């Protein structure tokens, strides 16, 4: 089933068009990487599905038109991890993760046992239990990235959107983050992730959507979506293809 479906979606900031006629689908149980040069519209694609940026065309979330979704239901269905993910107060990691339960909680109602379990489970899956009670500003970048991902997972939404979660992470943390996203997809979640690193995208993601100046340049498995012609046209690069065991990756090699 398609968890998320965009049909001829266009969006603009003022007079500047960002997305034009994007048609794409995202499956449950799969990680889809959204790649493209800066300004291709990757983040805007997320914003249209969240209703932050108005759009033309049709967006279907779990086979229901976005227009029919209430704010609260949508919040329980799409978990969003924005880029950068600053946190503004030094709250503890556990309390930060608990914010992911807000869509399930009524105003002024205390956290239920289900909330506590979801928070503990998300911390556990992200291997963040050991620093759960430390203030977020005392954590390293890698630890903080895991806590922020746990916050998004705690919502228990069937769709997860992560915007550049691998930026600013060292290689080991990038790999462990991608593994966590893949684990989440294995549980049936539709995972959408924007990435700049084509190697991470091709190595870990089931599908790749290539955006070019607000339009879809290609969508499919890595070896199809990231073929030599697309890499040359969209990114202006030539890439190496690395194979190791069952896996393979695209490695940006020279700028054209």
């Amino acid at each position, binding site marked *: 089933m398609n968890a998320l479906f965009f049909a001829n979606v266009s969006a603009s900031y003022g007079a500047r068009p960002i997305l034009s006629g994007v048609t794409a689908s995202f499956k449950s149980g799969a990680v889809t990487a959204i790649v493209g040069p800066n300004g291709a519209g990757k983040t805007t694609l997320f914003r249209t599905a969240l209703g932050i940026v108005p759009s033309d065309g049709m967006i279907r979330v779990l086979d229901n038109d976005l227009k029919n979704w209430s704010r609260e239901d949508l919040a329980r269905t799409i978990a969003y991890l924005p880029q950068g993910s600053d946190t503004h107060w030094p709250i503890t990691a556990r*309390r930060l993760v608990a914010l992911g339960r807000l869509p399930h909680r009524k105003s002024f109602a205390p956290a239920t046992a289900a909330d506590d379990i979801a928070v503990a489970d998300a911390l556990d899956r992200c291997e963040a239990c050991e620093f759960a009670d430390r203030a977020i500003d005392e954590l390293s970048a890698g630890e903080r990235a895991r806590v922020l991902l746990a916050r998004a997972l705690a919502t228990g939404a069937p769709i997860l959107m992560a915007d550049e979660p691998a930026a600013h992470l060292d290689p080991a943390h990038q790999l462990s983050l991608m593994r966590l996203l893949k684990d989440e997809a294995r549980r049936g979640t539709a995972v959408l992730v924007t990435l700049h690193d084509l190697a991470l995208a091709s190595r870990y993601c089931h599908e790749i959507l290539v955006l070019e100046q607000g339009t879809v340049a290609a969508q499919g498995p890595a070896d199809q979506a990231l073929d030599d012609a697309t890499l040359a046209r969209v990114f202006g690069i030539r890439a190496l293809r690395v194979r190791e065991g069952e896996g393979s990756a695209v490695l940006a090699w020279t700028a054209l």
Partner: protein
Amino acid sequence: MHGTAAKEIKRIRFAGDERSSARATFALLVIALLLASFSFFLGPSNIAPADLVSGLFSGHGAAGVIAREIRLPRALLALFVGAALGASGAALQGLFRNPLAEPGITGVTSSAGLGAVIALYFGLATISAAVLPACAVTGALVSAGILYLLSRAGAGVMALVLAGVAIASLATALTALALSLAPNPYAMSEMVLWMMGSLKDRTLSDLVFAVPLTVIGVALLVSAARGLDALTLGEEAAHSLGIDVGKVRRRVVFGVALATGAATAAAGAVSFVGLVVPHLLRPFYGYEPARLILPSALGGAALIALADIIVRFADPSEQLRLGVFTALLGAPFFLWLILRLRRDA
């Protein structure tokens, strides 16, 4: 090494779990009520506390008049003015995600003072007793509205603080101008009240408007609390968690305008309470903006009650104004806070 360990222990002790937070809130309530009771027994006339209490209930004699008309309004107003300012500070800090936001610094207090001065010295206040607080709330609303528009346009916190400086200067200048132009010959000499704040000579009629406006204002702020927690993660994350960020902004701006307007109509411009109180209480509530609003109201109430006691002890003729006293403490605190934030960054 020692410093880090000490910091760690402090963190653990102040981790802000629900039970210790509840104890802290209860302690604040008790302290505020004790200070208000003490304030009630403090005054220039030498009446025995027992006579004051019996006067309060009976309403008979000089003790009754003093208890009901002078002491009780002053003690209660201190609580409500402090609660309004403390809660407003906590909510503004949550909304702007910065510990430097405060009704005084953002110019809301001086704008409310301007509204009050216009109502008072141009005879509008004689139309109805409701006009003075209405004008103060309107003044507060105008400046809070400017801040709202700036924050909606994506202005950073420093821009907001600077805008607050400009708004406060403009409101102070207009207040001075209004008082120069006012037909009332005593206007200039009373200007000090509005620019420097005081609880001297308040009556029950001041309470009649201050209490409901403060209660409604703080209730609006509390209703926005959940959204303020979500805003810890930034606006887009808050939106994705089902929070209507625009609604949260509007509630905070209206709540702050009502509460600060009411406080200023009753006591004149009293600054820095909304800065100091939430900052001191934050570690006891796990740094979460939502949990901080009501305790900041109680802490503000206690602080104003205490300050109002100190200004009377320091000088029984009350040449030391309440607002001057809070600024003498608050402004250095503000500078220290800026230095500390720069060092941490």
